[in-house]
Structure formats: structure tokens, C-alpha cells
């Protein structure tokens, strides 16, 4: 096939499909023109800043774009309500889980507002970290320095973590660093004790466990009184984390007594590890317990039994 044949073929093809060819040429021309126009559209110049409120400082992950304005508006509305002391409206914005965990009645929330918003506050936000569909923001509260020039006060801010949780294509809003409630329904039982924990509340930097303990014996039982190491602890990534208030809590049960305790453990919710179990490393079934230093060793020497107990969670975070 020579050059002339090819030319003739092309010519014939064009003649035969003239309309289609014209249509294709015009379409391509239009696409090129539109591309050119869009490329050369003058961009609106706005002052460039390094401020990216919805990008996490921990790992530079970004909160989904569809939530940006929703989150920013919610925080603004909440702060406005608090500044105006519209307690009920602000309280209604918080998720039920957060209310149950921190402010079960509006009076508790009112105290928070009155303390945090003694004067009008302005604020800034910065996404701190994101775990799955939970978006954690640092919110810095400051006195309204634009209006006061911080005259007569020291410039500074108070930081609080606000958490937004994606749930059924909507966002749940929590304050005070509260992240979520996890149902555990874990228990362990032997001839001396029955220990049940139904749930834990996860905060950004700690977890609280509600634990029901029953002494089934006719002896006093000591689980924690601050005299030993890691008496009550959770295991996280093969490390034990001791209960933070053990010296104040004094976990001692009299014969046949049942009590509910709230244990607090340090644990960052974005560290990537889930607690595996709660350890009671020194359960002391004693003939008598006075709680005094003088008789402590003698009471331990006469113990009915000393052992450790593990309460497995068997749940993923």
C-alpha cells in the first residue's frame, strides 16, 4: 500500500463519515479550549499561612474535608453558647456518652462553663490526632486579647481536647478530652472474690474503669492500699500501668462486702495499643486488717492466702 492509497482511504473515510469527524474535531477543540480557560483562570490571592486546623499535628493525617466546616461551626456555636451562658443549648450539643461520663446533670456542666468562661473567651483550634473515625482537636481558650490587648493580664491560654466521632454519617461531639465508652462485660471469680467490670470510659490521656468487687469470704481482703508496686494495674503492650490514685482509693473489702470502685489508668488513646487485662498482683486474704504501718507485717505473716488475679478484657479497642 503506497502513500496515495492511504491518502485516498483517509479521504474516503472522512467523506463517508463527515458528520462524525466534524463532531469529534469540535468536541476535542471544545475540551482543549475549556482546559485552557480553566488553566489560565486567575486564582484569587489570599494571604498564605501555615495554619492547617484540620491536619493532625501528630501524623499529618487530615480530617475528611466534608467535616471541616461542620466541626469548625460546631466549636464556634458551642463557645458562643458558653460565652453567653446559654447552658442548656451548649449542654444539648454534647453527646449522651460524654454527658453520662463527665456531666451527668446540667449542674455539673454549668460549673464547667462558669469556671472556663469566667470572662469572654476567644479560641483557636488545631486537629491533634485522628484514630479511625475519631477526630481529636486541641482547643486553646484565651482571654479576648484582641479586645483587651491583654492589658493587666498575662497572655496565656488553657487547652482542652474536643473529640468528634463519626457515627452514621453524623458527628458526635465530646468535650473534656472524653473519647468514648467501651462496653467490657468482663469478670473473674474464684472462691474469695468476684470482680466485674462492665465498661470503661476512654479519655485522650487516661481510661477509667468501673469495677464491682465482692468479697465472698469471712475475712477482710486487701487488693490495693498503696503499700506495694503495681497492686492494681492494666497491661498495655506488655507493660503494667498502675492505678494512678491507688494511695487514695484504698481497695479493702470487709467480709462479704461488695463495693464499686472507679480505677484510673494513664493511657493515650492514640498510642495504638489496646489494654489486655487488669492485674490484681497482690490479693491479700487476711485474718485481720488494721491499715496501720505498725501491724502490717504481722498481719501479712498471718495471711490466710496471698495470690494474684487477672481480669481479661478480651476486647479490641
Amino acid at each position, binding site marked *: 500500500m503506497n502513500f496515495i492509497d492511504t491518502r485516498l482511504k483517509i479521504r474516503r473515510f472522512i467523506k463517508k463519515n463527515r458528520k462524525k469527524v466534524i463532531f469529534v474535531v469540535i468536541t476535542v477543540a471544545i475540551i482543549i479550549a475549556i482546559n485552557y480557560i480553566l488553566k489560565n483562570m486567575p486564582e484569587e490571592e489570599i494571604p498564605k499561612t*501555615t*495554619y492547617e486546623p484540620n491536619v493532625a499535628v501528630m501524623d499529618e493525617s487530615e480530617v475528611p474535608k466534608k467535616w471541616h466546616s461542620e466541626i469548625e461551626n460546631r466549636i464556634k456555636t458551642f463557645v458562643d453558647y458558653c460565652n453567653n451562658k446559654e447552658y442548656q443549648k451548649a449542654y444539648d450539643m454534647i453527646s449522651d456518652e460524654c454527658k453520662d461520663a463527665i456531666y451527668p446533670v446540667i449542674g455539673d456542666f454549668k460549673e464547667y462553663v462558669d469556671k472556663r468562661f469566667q470572662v469572654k473567651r476567644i479560641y483557636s483550634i*488545631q486537629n491533634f490526632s485522628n484514630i479511625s473515625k475519631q477526630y481529636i482537636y486541641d482547643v486553646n481558650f484565651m482571654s479576648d486579647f*484582641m479586645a483587651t490587648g491583654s492589658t493587666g493580664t498575662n497572655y496565656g491560654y488553657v487547652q482542652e481536647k474536643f473529640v468528634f466521632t463519626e457515627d452514621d454519617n453524623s458527628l458526635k461531639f465530646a468535650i473534656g478530652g472524653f473519647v468514648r465508652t467501651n462496653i467490657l462485660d468482663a469478670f473473674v471469680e474464684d472462691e474469695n472474690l468476684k470482680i466485674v467490670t462492665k465498661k470503661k470510659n476512654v479519655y485522650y490521656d487516661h481510661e477509667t474503669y468501673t469495677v464491682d468487687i465482692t468479697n465472698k469470704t469471712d475475712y477482710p481482703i486487701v487488693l490495693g492500699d498503696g503499700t506495694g508496686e503495681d497492686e492494681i494495674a492494666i497491661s498495655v503492650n506488655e507493660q503494667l500501668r498502675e492505678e494512678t490514685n491507688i494511695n487514695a482509693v484504698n481497695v479493702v473489702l470487709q467480709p462479704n462486702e461488695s463495693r464499686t470502685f472507679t480505677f484510673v489508668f494513664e493511657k493515650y488513646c492514640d498510642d495504638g495499643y489496646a489494654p489486655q487485662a487488669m492485674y490484681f498482683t497482690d490479693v491479700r486474704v487476711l485474718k485481720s486488717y488494721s491499715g496501720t504501718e505498725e501491724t502490717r507485717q504481722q498481719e501479712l505473716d498471718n495471711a490466710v492466702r496471698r495470690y494474684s488475679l487477672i481480669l481479661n478484657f478480651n476486647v479490641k479497642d
Partner: protein
Amino acid sequence: MARKKRKIPAPQKRVRILVVIAILLILINVYNISKLIIIANNREKAKNLNTAEVTGSENITAEEIEQNAEERELEGLKDADERTRIQQYCGTFIRHIENGEYDKAYDLLYPDFKNNYFKTLEDFTKYVQEKFPSDLILVSYDNIERQGQYYILFTTITSPLQPDYSMEERFFFVENDFNDFKVSFEVKQ
């Protein structure tokens, strides 16, 4: 009963296609023409700017000189990072005070701040005349912090003509756009 599809006659069809193409071509041309107009306008502006620089105040008014300076300042701001911009805003505010243009400095104050401390221009003038150096003002920028949309500039103000004078001052800025900002500062008792 199903509606019968009416067949468009061939000539009418051709006309329709031609109309669509014509509209598209017109749109493209309108865009190009408007772009050419903008470019021509910009060239004219640039030419005027150059003329102003070369001929000085002979052919242009003081107002035009000021406008040209503002335009150049604005161009500079567009290339600057946020720290430089905020320092420049602070410089603008101080320059107004230094030049005795208290009304211009007063206009830059954040409205609530004005309302709290300087209800009138006279109040503000009295304050700056009392607290700031009367002639040459030097500002050293010690630190800058950002809280969301707000900037806090920590400065020390001195004056070469008053060796004993030194004042630490915190300025607070909010930037709405290039060269569009509001300022407040710690009022000294």
C-alpha cells in the same frame, strides 16, 4: 398511548448544531477578549507606575504617589510569609505613630479594643504621645506566636534619640486580607 418521536428535519438539525458551535466560539472569544483587556489595563498601570518613578512629582499628584506606594507594598506582601507580613503590619502602625498620623493608626485598631480603651482619637493621641518615643521609633521583634487566626507579636520599642527609653510591648493582630488587618496592644498604666 406512547408518544410518537418527532423526527427533526435535517436542515433544522444542521442549524441547531451551527448555533451551538457559534455560541461556544463566542464564549471562547469573549473570554479571550476580556483577558486581552485585562492585560492591556495592567500594562497601562505598569507604564503609569514607571512614569511616576521616573518623573517624580512633576506629573502626578501626592495621592497618586501614595497609591503607587500602596500597590508596591501590596505586591511585596503577596510574596511574603506570615511572619514578615505581620511584622510589616506592625511597622505600618508604628510608622503612622512616628509620623504623627494618629488618625491612620487609630483606624487600624480593633473595634472592641478601641471601644474599651480609646473611645476617641484624642484619647489615643494622648496615650501614644505619652508612652511612645516622640521622634525616631525602633522596634525589635522578639518573638511571634500564632493562635489560629490571631498573631501575637512580642516586641521591644526603643529610640536612638532617647537612650534611656525601652518598652516591651505585645501587639495582637488579625489579618483579614493583604494589608487589611486590625491591631490591639497591651495598654500600659
